[in-house]
């Protein structure tokens, strides 16, 4: 797996590269600002780009803008965005064009190396990785939604993990239940929320996120 890292903080950039190389991954380039990042993507054609949200010059959303631009130039590029804090608007603008090969994680998740690597691989292989914090905020905000209240607690757990981008097997493992049980929960959730059932993980994430976003929008 060929990786390009865009992170303006030198220490963190080198730390990430050190970590990934130690795991046997191929970090082909690192960049400290959006322009250098886009150049590196054009030149190296990586599989995955890991991008920090805040980058020079204004340290606001340059990373998101650069990631969207890189995706426009190379539609197959998988992008994992790292953020110091959850910014709903950034996550939404990133997911506006579909959730395949996209990830949005809080920076500190990198410290949980196993989970981070799982998420990284999932994104590289065409899946989605949404930070649990983002999902939690969406769930909290759309609480007034009547249909969400019809879910059982266990179904809510499954919904959250689906929104994070986990596949059926991963959800079953996380909740320590059988694949069959997860299937049953998911069918029930889709029925209660009036969503069209699908087995493709990325479409499922998009549907769930869209639903949760809509819930948030309806409320406000």
């Amino acid at each position, binding site marked *: 797996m060929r990786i390009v890292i865009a992170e303006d*903080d030198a*220490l*963190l950039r*080198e*730390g*990430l590269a*050190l*970590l990934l190389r*130690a*795991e046997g991954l191929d970090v082909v380039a690192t960049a400290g600002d959006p322009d250098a990042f886009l150049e590196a993507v054009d030149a190296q054609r990586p599989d995955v780009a890991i991008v920090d949200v*805040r980058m020079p010059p204004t*340290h606001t959303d340059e990373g998101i803008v650069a990631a969207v631009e890189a995706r426009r130039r190379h539609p197959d590029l998988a992008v994992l965005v790292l953020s*110091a*804090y959850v910014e709903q608007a950034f996550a939404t603008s990133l997911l506006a064009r579909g959730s395949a090969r996209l990830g949005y994680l809080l*920076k*500190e998740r*990198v*410290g*949980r*190396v196993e989970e*981070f690597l799982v998420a990284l691989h999932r994104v590289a292989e065409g899946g989605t990785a949404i930070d649990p914090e983002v999902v939690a905020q969406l769930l909290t905000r759309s609480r007034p939604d009547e249909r969400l209240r019809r879910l059982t607690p266990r179904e809510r757990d499954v919904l959250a993990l689906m929104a994070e981008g986990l596949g059926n097997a991963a959800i079953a493992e996380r909740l320590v239940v059988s694949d069959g049980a997860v299937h049953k929960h998911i069918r029930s959730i889709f029925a209660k929320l009036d969503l069209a059932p699908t087995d493709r993980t990325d479409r499922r994430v998009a549907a769930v996120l869209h639903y949760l976003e809509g819930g948030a929008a309806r409320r406000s």
Partner: protein
Amino acid sequence: MQRGTHDPSGRTADAPARPASAPTTPPAPAPVPASARSSGSASPASASASVSARARLVLDSLEHLVSGFGTGILALVALLWLAVTALACLVGVGLLLLPSALHAVRAVADRERARLSRWGPEVIGPPPLPSGLRAAVTDRAVRREVAWVAVHGVLGTFLGVVGLTLPLNAAHDLSFPLWWSLVPESAATAAAGWWTVRDWPGALLVLPMGAGWLAVILLGMPALARLQAWPGRRLLRPGAGTDLVLRVAELTATRAAALDAHATELRRIERSLHDGTQNRLVAVTVLIGAARRALARDPADAVAALDRAQDAAEQALAELRAVVRGILPPVLADRSLPDALTALAADCPVPCEIDADVPGRCAASVEATAYFVVAEALTNVARHSGARRAVVTVRRRDDRLCLTVRDDGRGGAREAGGSGGSGGSGGSGLTGIRRRTEAHDGTMELASPTGGPTTLEVTLPCGS
């Protein structure tokens, strides 16, 4: 038999209502109604209470007359200065003197406002003097102040003298029999030299004179003090309506600037916490994660990752310290402003001399602002000026803290937002200085001709 009960002020409950003769002296003890003083049937306790209340009132009045005498003398001086200015105007050089004369008038008037506000309703001052001479001369508040200077300089001073003389006369006459025979005949006169005393009957005749003085003091002194304060209360209060509206608008603006400066400050703190400290801590978790994974494979790799993690943690601490120091420097909290500035100068890469002579301490927010101004100014000096040395002067003039930062660099510093700030002039730093200064009702002036030297002058009200 006792008539009625007594409230703590010594007034009898059934005494007639106090005549509305003294509306301007609410803090002074209520005057004792005539019925309480003259009634033989009032209890001894009430009599002594009313006597002591009267004595306190008279003493307060005396104090007011004396302090009014002080401002009266100052007003007289300001009046003379105005007269000199007016004469100089005839010869043509008066316009040069006029600003100083108007400032002198304003200073004396402010002193009188503060004096009156201490013992009566607060007398609110007008906005600062208009900057243009024409505007200043036609300003209504200024004209009223000039009128007050004339009235108070003459009448206030005279009443002050009277107020001082009355007790002296009373003391002189009441004690006269004790010492008249010891002094030369020419000095043995009743107060004010009305007649010369040659024998004992004459000396005893002076006593009733003393009693007379005492009665005048007891009855007249408060009225005297009120009369002395009257022109100030009339002429120095703001004109109806418009003046206060302006003042409110000005205070609203400075308050908004203060909040704005506050928000900028919060943003700055948020930014440095986010981009500095938080990133370091994330790096620490990443490196510790890497070390854990490495431990399983090769402990030597783990040591390298842990080394880096420790570096990152130490950097996080250093940055946290810098952030905290930017909020309120501990050295400022623990020691004095000069000490804090000396520490700043020691950190400055350009040799910097601190010349601070500030007796006492100012309000904490003012000291923090002064510290911020000097820190920001020295950062500019170090980054942009190319100076070889800088001098920071701190003085306290009356109730203002005056800061001067001078360097021998190449000059040309401009505030950002002005037309075409020359490259690398540290404009945003200067804007920050101006904002924080004006938020404290302070002033900032920058002189930085191309080629240098650069002088930054900031004054702040001390607030203490």
